[in-house]
């Protein structure tokens, strides 16, 4: 509701999740922890936005899921990047790079 991610954040969150999954299939908590580690604690994700994003990505066919046992022999839903998801990740990464470079140019110009 009030903490609905804005468009930009929403887009980046999806991209970050895809990036995380590019290495290996992971469950929800694993993804959250990985994102926090990699961002050195800048991102702290609550379950709400995370699972909404999973649902959205899964319905868009960018990721798929299966139930598996974790290393602690607990049942968890693992998310896997699909081919389509991999393509999307590549294109979004490129686009992101372009945008960041452009923004940086604008900011440096003054």
């Amino acid at each position, binding site marked *: 509701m009030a903490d609905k991610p804005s468009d930009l954040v929403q887009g980046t969150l999806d991209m970050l999740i895809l990036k995380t999954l590019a290495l290996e299939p992971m469950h*929800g908590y694993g993804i*959250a922890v990985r994102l926090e580690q990699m961002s050195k604690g800048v991102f702290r994700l609550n379950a709400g936005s995370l*699972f909404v994003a999973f*649902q959205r990505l899964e319905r868009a066919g960018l990721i798929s899921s299966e139930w598996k046992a974790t290393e602690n022999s607990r049942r968890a839903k693992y998310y896997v990047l699909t081919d389509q998801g991999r393509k999307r990740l590549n294109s979004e990464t490129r686009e992101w790079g372009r945008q960041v470079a452009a923004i940086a140019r604008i900011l440096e110009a003054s």
Partner: protein
Amino acid sequence: MSLLRNISDGLRWLFRKERVTQELDEELNGFLEMAAEEKMKQGMGRKDALRAVRLERGSLEVTKEIVHSASWESFLGTCWRDLRFALRMLRKSPGLMFAVILSLGIGVGANTAIFSLVDAAILKPLPVEDPDSLRVIEWSNPEFPEGVSNINGDFNQISGGGVQASSVGAHLYRKLAHEQTVFAALVGIADSNPVGIAIDALPAEQVSLQYVSDNFFQGLGVLPVIGRPFRAEEDRVGQEPLVVVSHRFWVSRLGGAGDALDRSVRINNVPARIVGVAPPGFFGLRAGQWTDIYAPLAMRVAFQPGQSDGAPRGEDDSDWWVREMGRLKPGVSETAAKTQIAGLFRSLAAEAMNLEPKKIPELITLSGRRGFGALNARDASALWILVLLVGVLLLIVCANVANLLLSRSVVRQRESAVRLALGATRARVFRQHLVESGVLALLGGGAGLAFGSVLARSIHLVIESGRDPSSMFDLHLDLRVLGCTGGLSILTALLFGLAPAVQAARADLNDALKAQVGSVMGGRLRLPKLLVSLQIALCLTALVAAGLLGRSLENLRWVDIGFDREKLAYASVNPGQAGYSTERLGPYVERVRQELARLPGVLRVSPVEVRLLSGNGNLSRVSVPGRPSSIEKGVVAPTEAANVNSVGDGFFETLRIPLIAGRTIERRDIRPNADAVVVDELFTRRFFPNENPLGRRFGFDPKDSNRYEIVGVVRDTLYNSLRREPLPTVYEPYLPDVRDPIHFAIRTTMDSARLAQAVRAVVASVDPAVPLIEFHTQNGLIDRLLRTERLLALMSVAFGLVALILAAIGIAGVLAYAVARRTNEIGVRMALGATASDVIRMVLRDSLWMVGAGILIGFPFAFAIGKLLRAILFRLEPLDPWTATAALFALLVVTLLASWLPARRAVCVDPIVALRYE
């Protein structure tokens, strides 16, 4: 692919809710557990760890809600909840619900009815394959085409003295259809013909037949459902007569029997064989006219034999009676098609008729999507006026329903406020109210659909009253009508639901929760009052329209027609159809006349060529020896024209047209080449002013202006129109003609139903092969002439009354609410010494403000509608002061009455109770 996935996931959620929720539950639980474990590893207790996780990551339930509400299916789910809630709320106030659904039913129903008529008569495409590719072929020519003796079908004067018409000769059509290459098929069809048909040993009855080309059914893509279409070799003179019957005819006359094929029937007393049954719903190519029987073009010779001279009818190149319609080949442009057939027709006709090509009319193509024009201009404009009236009615209904709901939404303001306070968004409250309106609109739409189809059928009855049974529109409920009703319902829901919904969503929490209901809605009920004023304005418009149309109809109905219209009837037969020759016709007519005169209760009988005020008639130019005449090209100047009628002896006595001078037509005048005629007073005033007309001579042909001798003068009568300035009338002695139907005017003392029965029996007893084709009372004919006016007057008066009732409900509702809200104030006033009349005055002042504002807004509308109606008003100005006064008076009386109840209630307020109220 992902869309599909999205939908299937959503559906899974909707229908396997348990399972999906459980999965999400497990996954989230796992997530939180894992996070908690992490914390526990750092030395936290399990309980603390779990709480810390909940704080950091969000609780299980909230997360579930968030995840769920992010998907589309949750939107559906809440809509469903809204819907159930709406139904529950509506059940709680059945009175209000009834009022709303009833008024919506009337509003939407009236609109549905008029739309279905307009659609059937004006908008709907033909029930054939791909009607958009059809083109109607007509022709235009600078003058009446040379070498043509007769033109059937449409024939119109166009600007510059030219003519535009629709038919060509049968042979010319066949050659053109054969040689053209731009149409996939070029079909030919004649206008419908009344014929007598006898099945088995039953007496003949009149049905409508159309002659069509052999490729008619194939070309239009309406192949017979039983049997077969015609074949090329069957459209030839001398072939065995074959017919295809309409589905309606097959069901109603042949009982839908499977063995209808190869049945033999007698058409105009000629045996013919049925080879097919057309598909259901196919009425022909003209909406509003249902053809019963189709026969090949060449059968006209067999079914309608010519005069004794023996020339076959219809196969002559100078007789133009076949209309054409073509289906454009894919990829052929309209221009190319027109160019080819126009050129082809020129050369074919020039050769056949032995004329120069430039004298041959030019073919043109028109859209054939809707077939041949169905309505005359006056009926069409009447329908559009009705569209306007029902539109006004719908607006009134919307204003009324909006008001009813608005007053309720005020009552429910607390409820909305509580919802908002508990965290519902304003959008959510707004939607909830809109859903309620939607439910009401849907229910009202359903009621409207039922009411509308009944109303459409009733109106249809009025439109078709007095016409022959083949004339009817296809009114069955189809998707187009359903779409119109649905669309209107949604539109009304938006119109009447928006204001209450906005009101509810705008609720000010503080005010609503702490104060009593009354003080919530903006101090002075501005919106409801405005809506009532709007209702009054529209109501005034409807009342003025009703008054004008009603008075105009009364004026027409009581116009002096010059003879006694009561207890007068006409019976019609057409012996020529049954093969009577001229020689046998005279004795037949005499016999029927005698038998009719012998009926008890019949005073007098006389044959007549043109029934008065039937809408038909003959017109001739009168030339008087020695009187100069201004010859105009092809058109008779009104100052030289006269209506012509042929009447038997005793006609004037039968109709009770008073004789002014001389004598009437007598038996001795009934012979070929008799020269005695009777004229009316207008005739003598116009052609023989200031002299004795008796014995004077005149003629219809300028070359023979001594043809007739005036032997008598009778009073003026109206001839074929109640509206037009009457023309002089000439009465000739009547000689029956095999080509025309014969009408008997009957003066009786019986009521018409019994007379009709007796007449039918008499006609059947004289010759069973000759059916009674029509029976009308004189009043019935006049009603038929006035059917458009009557329809408009009836509908507008009915709509006016409904509008008035709705306005009364609206004003009473708003005042009652205002009084209830001001109970307190009224109590204080009365405690301080206000009298009952002060209080009544206070309430009435409110009411008068609304009415006054409404009338002020309504006057321009009323004026505009008067202007619109000007063309169809009879002896009435659009600003008729009487009508306006009557409308205002009705409005004032009804609104005052409506204000009376709330005012009474205000007076009954007990100051003590009112003051304790809080």
